């Protein structure tokens, strides 16, 4: 029965207008947040969220639409971070120029890596993508004259920027908040543009069946490289943003496989190959890891009286729960993958469709 389901009919124009209005409202609301919220921790969480959305949406172009599961995107993230900071600290080039250089560098590397690894399919491509990212990590680790090796790069404050009368100083978190928001909008719009273009159709055809796509006139290697190129540019943007925000990078933070896996997980949990999927995935993962890490769960359990702070259980939770956050996080990820194979967005859409079908059945 499920296989026979008609896909959701295309949204009529009215509802497209509603989604545009909703998106504009959300962005406007987010833009207003710093006016009301001055708590740096809250802004910090929002910035982490923006970063995750950019990372997930960037990976989504090649992994979600084109179906090429790269687990080596840390390479582009690291290149974005390193190029930006090296240009700023060593050559005194302003980061808003350095970021462009970083994105161009990531694009160039992506095209080289793509032309090599896209000869491989399925699991072999995944393994090759991991291997290439490791090569880049080791290169950065050992090329000490440029990258400072394992010690990493620590940068001073970001130079202020002046627009006529107004100067923006990157001291508080507010400027970072707005820059991040703008990048989120750009990345999500890029996903939207891909989905509603010939490229998007070709990417999805490649994802669904490479041989069929090839026979229908699609140049596989070229289109996979285009997908990877777009993806790498936005991934480098995320890396650059991270480096400028934290102002310290080393190979074990920006070039590890953890970064690559994180990008894949955001998409898998939210819903792969959809515009909103990575946004939802980022929301869930950032909320989850922050709650677990800050021991909010224990505090809530104690405050609602489920466990007493003085009891042995309470003490145990207080002591250990926050240390187990990676464990709980992992278990939750497994649960989502097992029970929601199309991600949270896919699951929600499917249950809505079921409810609609049931309602239609009752009417009859």
């Amino acid at each position, binding site marked *: 029965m499920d*296989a*026979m*389901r*008609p*896909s959701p*009919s*295309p949204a009529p124009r009215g509802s497209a207008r509603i989604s545009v209005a909703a998106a504009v409202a959300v962005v406007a609301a987010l833009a207003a947040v710093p006016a009301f919220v001055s708590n740096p921790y809250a802004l910090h969480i929002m910035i982490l969220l923006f970063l995750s959305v950019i990372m997930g949406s960037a990976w989504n172009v090649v992994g979600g639409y084109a179906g090429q599961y790269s687990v080596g995107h840390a390479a582009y993230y690291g290149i974005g971070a390193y190029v930006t900071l090296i240009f700023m600290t060593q050559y005194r080039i302003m980061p808003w120029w350095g970021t462009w250089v970083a994105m161009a560098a990531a694009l160039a590397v992506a095209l080289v890596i793509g032309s090599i690894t896209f000869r491989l399919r399925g699991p072999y491509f995944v393994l090759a993508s991991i291997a290439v990212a490791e090569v880049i990590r080791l290169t950065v680790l050992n090329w000490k004259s440029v990258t400072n090796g394992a010690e990493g790069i620590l940068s001073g404050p970001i130079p202020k920027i002046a627009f006529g009368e107004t100067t923006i100083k990157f001291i508080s978190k507010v400027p970072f908040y707005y820059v991040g928001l703008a990048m989120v909008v750009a990345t999500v719009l890029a996903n939207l543009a891909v989905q*509603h*273009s*010939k490229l998007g*159709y*070709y990417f*999805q*055809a490649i994802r*669904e*069946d490479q*041989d*069929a*796509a*090839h*026979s*229908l*006139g*699609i*140049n*596989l290697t070229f289109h996979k490289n285009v997908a990877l190129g777009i993806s790498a540019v936005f991934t480098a943007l995320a890396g650059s943003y991270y480096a400028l925000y934290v102002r310290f990078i080393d190979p074990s933070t920006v070039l590890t496989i953890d970064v690559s896996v994180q990008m894949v997980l955001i998409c898998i949990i939210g819903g792969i190959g959809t515009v909103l999927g990575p946004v939802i995935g980022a929301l869930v993962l950032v909320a989850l890891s922050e709650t677990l890490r800050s021991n909010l769960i224990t505090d809530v359990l104690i405050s609602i009286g489920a466990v007493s702070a003085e009891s042995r259980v309470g003490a145990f939770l207080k002591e250990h729960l926050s240390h187990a956050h990676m464990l709980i996080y992992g278990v939750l990820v497994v649960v989502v993958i097992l029970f929601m194979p199309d991600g949270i967005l896919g699951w929600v859409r499917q249950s809505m469709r079921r409810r609609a079908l049931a309602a239609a059945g009752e009417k009859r």
Partner: protein
Amino acid sequence: MAILEVRNVFKLFGGLAACSDVSFSMEPGMIMGLIGPNGAGKTTLFNCITGYYPPTKGEVEFKGQRIDGLSPDKVCKLGMVRTWQKVRPLAKMTVLDNVMVGALARTNSLRAAREIAAEQLEVVKLGPKARFLAGGLPIGERKKLEVARVLATKPEMLLLDEVMGGLNPAESDEIIQLILDIKRRGLTQMVIEHDMKAIMRISDRIVVLNSGEKLAEGLPQEIVNNPEVVTAYLGEAVS
């Protein structure tokens, strides 16, 4: 002038000759039947013609241009496209989107592609299923979807690999009508089929393959009366 010339094509897999010295030529607008027992090399020959494998030796010429060694996407752009014996629907895309992917070979505009796709879906009578996911179609409709998708690429020549395989007689009949319809529009077709009655009815000429070699070629009537062909299909007579 011939639209397709296959000259002395060999395809070797290690020591096994899947195609061995196969030659034939096709005139524009004709239907060529390709038959032979299982493992005779019919699909391998399709793969060699449409660019999935480069032939080990030999030449393939389409509209006077050498195409052996070109990739399938280039062959498609030149106007020759094939369907798959084991159907390959783009499962998580709608039926309309599947056909649009074909149409996009000739246009960059999604709107134009959507129009072409809707037209081709009408041709194969899949219009009402346009919004369904391709993965959910039954086999008969999947075969029709394959045909609609290749038609949308605006080809001059189609290679149909067992489009009637696994269909019931009524569905087969629909496909036969569809193939004859495509012929009336002036397209050239090469058809692999196991249903002898069907292939005799639609083909202008027939090529018979056996163990990778061309066993016979001729009009349908000549083929059914060819003793070698009968032997290849039924085995030697007990004497």
